[in-house]
């Protein structure tokens, strides 16, 4: 078995993931690149006697890496060892993609070119001459359509073939004058024993002429550096004079652009016609209609999340309750029975019930992303976000934040400017994540009329977003003075989302959610149950049991039983803890139970629901308040419920999100700030809301 290591590179949105998914019999691993939290996809395929390992590198526009993710790809290309480069390009925009291909070919590594999305070109009546393209570039060219699974498996054959060739057959050279300078500089580099390979020296010289700092750092410590540096300066001056440019970087950009243009002219016919994207964009980013349409989409998404998502809730609720009762009957009575049927099942059940809501929200966000609408929203909102010291691209992490804060922190990497990134990350927690949805749904159904529920939910989400913007503005004025990063962004064409990819994503989300509910949240529920059931107080119990026996009336019996349960809970470890922290939350109208639930939300926001379920499950014998909703209405007053909603909107996200933030932001000062300020702000705002409501007489 021979091993071949290949890397897959290409500009964003060329269909690399689709190709990876379309390779047959491949095993996919998803992990992280060493030291950074950038997702690393890797596939292993067997082909004859070869084991081919393909690493999918994050999308990169140019070797002049701009964003942190592009930096990851560039580093990998320069520093890691691999046998073959698979360069994927989008046939629709071949010229722009080839400019990057030409940069890659400077490396003179064994490279194959995969021209994807040919189905779209053919549909437009276009044609690409692969043989001619291959001849001009000097490397193998494959036409593929990941969508129709055409040509994808041929990639492996070409990888094996080129693996056996002695070297890259690239034929691309720049203008003679430029090549002359490159050659004489490369000769200086070759004097150093570190360089034995002319092709590598040539590549380094080109990067140096383009003022690539990563390469500069490598050659900086070589003994020949002084000589090289001087010669480099002279070469640059000569080239600037000769070609009348201000910067040699522009010279290479122009050269590659002109080369790419002439290659495309020779190999491709693509009739220019008004595309579907043109037509749709005329409406969706219309100067006047664009924003209202966008707001309508968002509103519709939250309505759907609530309305459709809540349809199966009663049914699920009943099923869980029945299951718990059934299990209670067959398990032997005792602590184990109790921990399962009173602790874990209701807690997990209280959360599983919200799976439909969460899936609909995720589906909505995925649709935004996959159809290409997300970029339009960024375009529409850029002017607006700029007022708050953010930029349009920040919209993407912000919207992802409605799904889950963890990937949203990672999505913030598309922002290059560190200040922009930090501001965005600091306010991401105000975008309500889907884990908070169960808590809101529970509180809304308990304290608001059913017909206004969707609107209240929308208000909570919008309210969080607006608060985030104001905080961003303040941060920009006080802590991060300066202009936000310029906004330059590709708007991908509208594409009909791949249903298979959508279904896959949803399935993965559902699986992860159920797994989280079954492990982490069940574990948290068990701890909460344990803390709320111990220590036992046999003396108290026997006293009450005596009392209960003495009374005849069954109503009085039930009342005493409730009293006992409430007393036991208050004396439990959790009760003691709750009493301890109660003073902090008392000004918000919280009793110790709400205080404990709030703190438990730091583990995961869904845990608030299960904790409430455990803590308010005391009135077991009370027949007219069987569900959690009814119990909440009974024990919690409206003002405190609203204050709780405000707290949940603002305070620190869960531990998983916090650790992601710590991983992304190395500075201790910002980590500390991030850990403290949302909680202070949450408390202050909840306090104000509580007292304003009190003034209104609610």
């Amino acid at each position, binding site marked *: 078995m021979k091993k071949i290591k290949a890397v897959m590179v290409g500009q964003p949105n060329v269909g690399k993931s689709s190709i990876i998914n379309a390779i047959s019999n491949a095993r996919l691993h998803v992990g992280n690149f060493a030291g950074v939290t950038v997702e690393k996809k890797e596939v292993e395929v067997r082909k004859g006697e070869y084991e081919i390992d393909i690493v999918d590198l994050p999308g990169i526009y140019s070797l002049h890496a701009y964003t942190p993710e592009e930096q990851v790809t560039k580093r990998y290309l320069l520093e890691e060892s691999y046998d073959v480069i698979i360069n994927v390009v989008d046939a629709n*925009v071949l010229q722009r993609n080839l400019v990057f291909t030409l940069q890659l070919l400077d490396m003179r590594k064994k490279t194959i070119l995969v021209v994807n999305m040919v189905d779209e070109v053919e549909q437009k009546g276009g044609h690409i001459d692969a043989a001619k393209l291959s001849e001009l570039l000097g490397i193998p060219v494959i036409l593929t359509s990941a969508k129709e699974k055409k040509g994808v498996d041929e990639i492996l054959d070409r990888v094996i073939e080129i693996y056996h060739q002695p070297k890259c057959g690239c034929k691309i050279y720049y203008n003679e004058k430029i090549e002359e300078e490159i050659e004489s500089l490369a000769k200086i580099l070759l004097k150093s024993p570190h360089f034995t390979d002319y092709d590598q020296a040539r590549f380094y010289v080109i990067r140096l002429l383009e003022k690539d700092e990563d390469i500069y750092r490598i050659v900086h410590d070589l003994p020949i550096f002084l000589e090289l540096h001087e010669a480099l300066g002279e070469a640059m001056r000569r080239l600037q004079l000769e070609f009348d440019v201000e910067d040699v970087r522009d010279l290479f950009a122009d050269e590659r652009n002109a080369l790419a243009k002439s290659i495309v002219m020779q190999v491709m016919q693509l009739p220019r016609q008004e595309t579907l994207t043109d037509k749709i964009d005329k409406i969706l980013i219309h*100067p006047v209609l664009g924003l209202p349409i966008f707001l309508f989409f968002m509103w519709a998404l939250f309505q759907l999340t609530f309305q459709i998502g809540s349809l199966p809730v009663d049914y699920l609720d009943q099923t869980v309750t029945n299951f718990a009762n059934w299990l209670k009957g067959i398990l032997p009575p005792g602590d184990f029975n109790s921990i399962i049927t009173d602790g874990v099942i209701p807690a997990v059940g209280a959360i599983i019930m919200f799976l439909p809501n969460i899936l609909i929200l995720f589906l909505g966000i995925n649709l935004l992303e996959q159809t290409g609408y997300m970029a339009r929203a960024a*375009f529409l909102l850029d002017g607006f976000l700029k007022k708050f010291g953010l930029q349009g691209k920040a919209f993407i992490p912000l919207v992802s934040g409605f799904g889950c804060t963890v990937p949203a922190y990672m999505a913030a990497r598309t922002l290059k400017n560190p200040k922009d990134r930090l501001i965005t990350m600091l306010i991401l927690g105000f975008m309500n994540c889907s884990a908070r949805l169960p808590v809101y749904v529970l509180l809304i159904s308990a304290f608001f009329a059913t017909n206004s529920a969707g609107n209240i939910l929308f208000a909570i989400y919008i309210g969080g977003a607006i608060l985030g913007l104001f905080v961003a503005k303040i941060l920009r004025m006080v802590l991060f003075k300066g202009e936000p990063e*310029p906004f330059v*962004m590709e*708007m991908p064409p509208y594409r009909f989302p791949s249903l298979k990819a959508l279904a896959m994503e949803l399935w993965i989300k559902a699986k992860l959610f159920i797994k989280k509910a079954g492990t982490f949240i069940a574990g948290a529920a068990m701890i909460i149950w344990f803390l709320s059931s111990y220590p036992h107080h046999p003396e108290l119990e026997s006293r009450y049991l005596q009392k209960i026996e003495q009374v005849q009336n069954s109503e009085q019996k039930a009342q005493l039983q409730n009293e006992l349960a409430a007393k036991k809970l208050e004396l439990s470890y959790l009760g003691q803890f709750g009493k301890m922290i109660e003073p902090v939350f008392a000004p918000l109208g919280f009793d110790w139970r709400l205080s404990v639930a709030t703190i438990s939300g730091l583990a995961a926001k869904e845990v608030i629901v299960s904790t409430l379920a455990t803590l308010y499950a005391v009135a077991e014998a009370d027949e007219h308040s069987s569900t959690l909703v009814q119990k909440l209405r009974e024990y919690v007053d409206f003002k405190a419920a609203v204050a709780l909603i405000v707290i949940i909107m603002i305070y620190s996200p869960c531990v998983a999100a916090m650790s992601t933030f710590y991983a992304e932001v190395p500075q201790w000062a910002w980590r500390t700030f991030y850990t403290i300020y949302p909680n202070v702000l949450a408390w202050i705002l909840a306090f104000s809301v509580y007292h304003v409501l009190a003034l209104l007489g609610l």
Partner: protein
Amino acid sequence: MDITDLKIGEEAIIKKVKAKEPIKGRLHAMGIAKGNKIRLLDHTLKKQTWEVDVEGTRVALRDEEAKAVEVER
């Protein structure tokens, strides 16, 4: 003249990209480079953000960047 002088739907040839690095490099990577055809597709109500088509790629940019791209009809 620059991008912001074009009318919606109008086409022109890029003469020069005057932006500073690294934005210039980014514009180049998106296809906004000397000699390429550019067409103005749209702008927001206050003309703060602009959308153009360069050789088949749609790019959104801000006023400042749009003003830095010199074009000729």
